[in-house]
Structure formats: C-alpha cells, structure tokens
C-alpha cells in the first residue's frame, strides 16, 4: 500500500514539474526549452529566501512571483518578436535563454551546492500502512492536487480561462473582439514560468540544489507533455499519474529499468495513439 502513496507523490511532483510547460505549449504553441532553467531558478530563489527568512513557505510564495516576473520580461523583450514566424524560432529563443539563465544563476550563487531543509511542519515521517512515509511527500500530494484543481478551474471555468482560450484558438478574432491578445500572452507565459518555479521550490527540500538540476528534468517534462496529449492539462495530470505509478512499481521490482519503463510508456503511446493518450480534440485545459 505504501507504494501507492509514494507513487502518488512521484506523480504529483512530476505534474508540478510539467504543468508550466504544458500550459505554455497548450495556450501559446511554444515549446519552452527554458522550462528546466526556470525550474532551477525557482529552487535557487527558494533557497535564498529560506536562508534570509528561515521560512520555506515564504520561499514557496516568493520564488514563483519572481520567476513569473522574469517570464513576463522574457516574453515582452524577445518571444513577442517572433510569434509571427515559424514555431522553430520560438523554440530557439527559449533555447538561448537556457544559456543566459544558467550563467546568471552561476554568477549569483556560484558553483557550491545549496540545500533547503525540510520544512519543520513536515519534517517527521508518519506511519501509514505499515511504512514510514515522509510527511513532506504527503504535502506534495496535497499541494499538487490543489495546483491542478486551481489550474483546471482557472482555465476551464473562469472568465479568464475563456479569454485565454479565445486568444489561443484565434488570436486575430480575439483581438477584433477587444481582447488584448499580447497582454494575455504575456500573462500566460508568466504563469507558466511561475509554475516552473513552483515545481523548483517544491522539489528544493528533496534534492541538492545545483546548476545541472534543470537539465535533468526537461526530458521527463517532455514525456509527460507528449503522453498527455500536447498542451492538455487534464492529460498532463493523467500522464503524470501513469508515469509516477509505473515508476513506483519499477523502483519496487526492477530498479535498474526505471528509466526505460518511462520510455516504453512513451513509445507505446506513440505507436497506438500518436496524438497522446489523453488528447481531446483541439487544445483545451
């Protein structure tokens, strides 16, 4: 049974990592290669805040705000100029941002590993189904579920969501209807960047914080996005659950195959449902 809990925590962590990428892709059609770099930045900022204030929760709040601001800046100074070009140019720009963000992080925080302690509230393990489960993992499950619900409500049920989807479906038409499309785009990119930072901040107490951490998650994020059906939040949740559970089972029975299990899921999906396992017609939340 403990495997289910751990699997859930793997799943929701994965979802938190991939949500921003999914959102930006779904709504803007941009593959944000710098997603991993923004995630890393989120973890570093969280570390900085924890060092200064001693509170993880302030870090979890501040990191996404700062990174969202940076995201807005990236969108307004660079990405905006290439929307009317081929998709490739947007991808290339975000690729260039990886190098710049990595360098900035190195200049600000240096090469030393950083660490964020587990927040005191969740530092003690709890016993569930005969296993000691880190309570921080339970927090990750709850927080991940809350974020996914909030995203779903925002995009599917709120007026905001309608505006975003309208701008995404037909920018010209939306513009004609009086929607400021370019502001919507900036907001969406900022939101996606902020989500990346949330992923980074939530991961911070689990791993050492170092310069390579962004590089190591980007492929996982892409796999979630592909299996989920490009840019589809519901799909991303389901894909995260599928991969997270498969990995938990993999770690239990065949640890050294875990990486390949993920790829096997990917290839299976692409063979039988090339548009993604959970794709819905058109882009939606």
């Amino acid at each position, binding site marked *: 049974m*403990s*495997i289910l809990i751990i699997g859930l925590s793997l799943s929701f962590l994965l979802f938190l990592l991939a949500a921003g990428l999914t959102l930006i892709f779904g709504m803007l059609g941009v593959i944000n290669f710098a997603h991993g770099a923004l995630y890393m930045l989120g973890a570093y900022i969280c570390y900085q805040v924890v060092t200064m204030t001693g509170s993880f929760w302030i870090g979890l709040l501040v990191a996404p705000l700062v990174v969202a601001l940076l995201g807005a800046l990236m969108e307004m100074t660079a990405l905006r100029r290439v929307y009317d070009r081929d998709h490739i140019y947007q991808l290339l720009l975000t690729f260039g941002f990886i190098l710049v963000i990595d360098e900035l992080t190195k200049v600000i925080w240096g090469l030393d590993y950083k660490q964020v302690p*587990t927040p005191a509230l969740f530092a003690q393990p709890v016993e569930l189904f005969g296993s000691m489960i880190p309570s921080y993992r339970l927090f990750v499950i709850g927080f991940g579920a809350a974020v996914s619900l909030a995203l779903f409500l925002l995009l599917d049920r709120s007026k905001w969501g309608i505006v975003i989807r309208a701008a995404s479906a037909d920018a010209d038409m939306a513009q004609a209807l009086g929607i400021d499309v370019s502001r919507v785009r900036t907001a969406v990119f900022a939101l996606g960047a902020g989500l990346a930072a949330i992923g980074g901040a939530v991961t911070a107490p689990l*791993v050492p914080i170092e310069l390579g951490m962004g590089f190591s998650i980007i492929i996982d994020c892409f796999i979630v996005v592909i299996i989920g059906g490009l840019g589809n939040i519901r799909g991303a949740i389901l894909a995260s659950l599928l991969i997270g559970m498969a990995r938990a089972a993999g770690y239990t029975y065949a*640890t050294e195959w875990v990486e390949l299990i993920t790829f096997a899921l990917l290839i299976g999906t692409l063979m039988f449902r090339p548009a993604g396992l959970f794709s819905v017609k058109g882009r939606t939340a």
Partner: protein
Amino acid sequence: MKRRQFLHTAGAAALATALPAPMLRAANAPEDFHIAAILAFSGAYGLIGKDMRLGAELAAAQRGGKVLGKTIRFSWEDDETKPQPAVQKATRLLSGGANMIFGAVGSASTLALQSLATQRKIPQLVTISADDVITKPGGSRYSFRTSNTLGMEVKMCMEFVKLSGLKRIYAVTADYQATRDGFEQFRTMAEAAGVEIVGNDYAPLGNRDYSVIIDKMANSDADGIIVVATGNDGVTFVKQAGQVGLGKDRTIFGPVLQDETFAAATGDAALGVYSGVRYHFSTDNPANKAFVEAYRAANNVYPSSFAGEAYDGLSWWFDVIESTDSWDVETWVDAFEDSVRENSIEGRKEMRACDHQATQVGLFGKVVRGEAPLPPLTMQITSVFPPEALFAAC
C-alpha cells in the same frame, strides 16, 4: 605563432559574416613548463575543479612558480564534466606543446585523456578520479595516480563493517560500471566475512527519487546501508533517507558518500553518516599543518579533499621532475615510477611501478557538527587504515 595567424584569417571570415571578430591571443612563450589542466569547472563536478585549482596553484606558488628553472604555466580548461570536451581541449593544448596533463575530474574524462596521453607520450597526473581501471598492472606508461582508488575505499567500507559489527547490509548502487564493480567487490568480501547482503538496488545515475528504495530498506531487517554512489546521487539519497529517519536505527555509510562539501549540500540529514575520506585537513603531521595554514591564509577556508589531493599530487610530481634535472619525458616517468613520498600531507605515499598507483593510508570518518571556524557540518576521522589492508600486491 601559427595559431595567431590563423586567427587573423578566421577573424576576417567572422567579420565578413558581421559577427564580432575573435580577439587575438598572446603567443606562447616557448620556455615555460606548460600544464594542460583539464578539470571540471561546470557540470556535475564543477565545484571540484575550482578547489583543485586552488590546491594546484598553491603547489606551484610554494616553489616560486618555477620547476627546472622555468615558469610553471597552467592552462585551465573546463571539460564541463564531459569526456568529449576534455579530449578536444587537451588535443588542442598538446598540439600547442603542453608538457603534461593534469586531470581530469570525472573518471570517464580521465580515461579518455589517458588514451590521449599514452598515444602522445605525455605524462598525465590524476589526483581525484577513483575508477580502478585508471591504474591497472600493465596499464598506461604515462599515467600516474596519487589519490585513492574506489577499490581501496570499498575495502575501507568492509573494514568498517567488521569494526562496527554490522551483520546485514542493504545496498544501493549507481548504475555505472565503476560503482557496479565496486558493489560486486563488496559483495564478495561480505560473503567471505559472513556478512549478509539482504538487498541491492541499482539506481540510474542522476536518480532524483529514492523514496521507494528507502521504503524497502526501512522494511528490511538490515542494520547497515551501503551507498555505492557519489556526488548528487549520494547527497540526494542521504537527504531523502533523513526524511524518514532511516539512519536512526541503521548505519548509513559508503566509499565516497560524504565530506564537508557534500554534507553542506545535504544538511542535517548527513549527521552520523559514515564515509571514506580522501584527504582531511585534520590529519596530524607537520607537512599537512603547514599546508592547511598556507591554504587558509590564501583562501580563508579549510582545504577540501579535492584541494588537498591536487596539492599533494602536484607537489610530489614537481619535486620528482626537479630531481631528474632533465626535460626528457621518459626520464620523468622512470623517476616517478620508483618514487616514495615520506612527508606527504597524508603521510607516507609510495608510487608503485607496476600500476602507477600510489599506496597510502585510508581515512574513514563520520559527519558531525563543527564549531567555527570549522564548517557547520564536518568530518570526524574515526579510523585510519594502513596501506597493507587496502592494497593487494600487483
């Protein structure tokens, strides 16, 4: 010279394409002792390269920056913790007439440089990479290692198991050739000593989640946990193990699991974790005291094991080639093969002619809280194993 002219032309080409022309580099002074220092300054081991450089520069500075009457010139190159840039940059420096290779950090890079050194007949000094195959009998004539091997560190782990009376061990091993070999070696020794291996999981290199493996360990009857992984992997494991208090009733240890650098990245979860230590600033001998003092004066911190090993290896190497009074590579190699270092900062070291590995004592310690000026988490050396217990005859 040639390079300079080449860059002129290259610059012209770049100008023609409206990009900033590369600046010109000063021509090599022909009469210096040129070291191609290929280390990791970015990537997974970026931190290690930085410390090694500080140690190496101190070794050069302490002899007036000269060897054989010529200025010691380092070319610091970043291999980004990847073998390909390592070979590429070394190839370029060797074409430019470098006298030796110092490096690399990661074993994969070091092995790649080794084949280059052998082929170009250029000496290579290794002071950190631990893969056993770097120094093997009948290996490269031009490569020398003055630091630990993974094999001796695994042996230290076994000695530690015997000392602490552990009976049942659960292992987690990074899925990488050297660490797999290390685990197999440990398993063989454990079986011979009547210690049971109750489980082993191979986790992917760069694994970010050990929760399931830790859960399996917590539900086993193991009294010891060996972690045959290093760097990020080791830190991540110890950190996540701390969240369930795995170390409370089980002893966590590993060949290169913790030192001051890794403990700082792990946090309090590192307390009480045991690990092999390559060099430690607390070693009590006059050479080490002098080194620690000089290093702290220059950098205001205690030397890490990376800085200490780099300093120790290079000082030894410089002394040996100084003593040959020759610029002949073969003479250097022959002299280093039979060299003994009585006053190394880690005590006596002896270079073996058969495999070019320096025999030395092995340190084992655990993470404890440190009082300023020590780092907040520091290693306390708990055992010193003699070379006879760690090195098999060639």
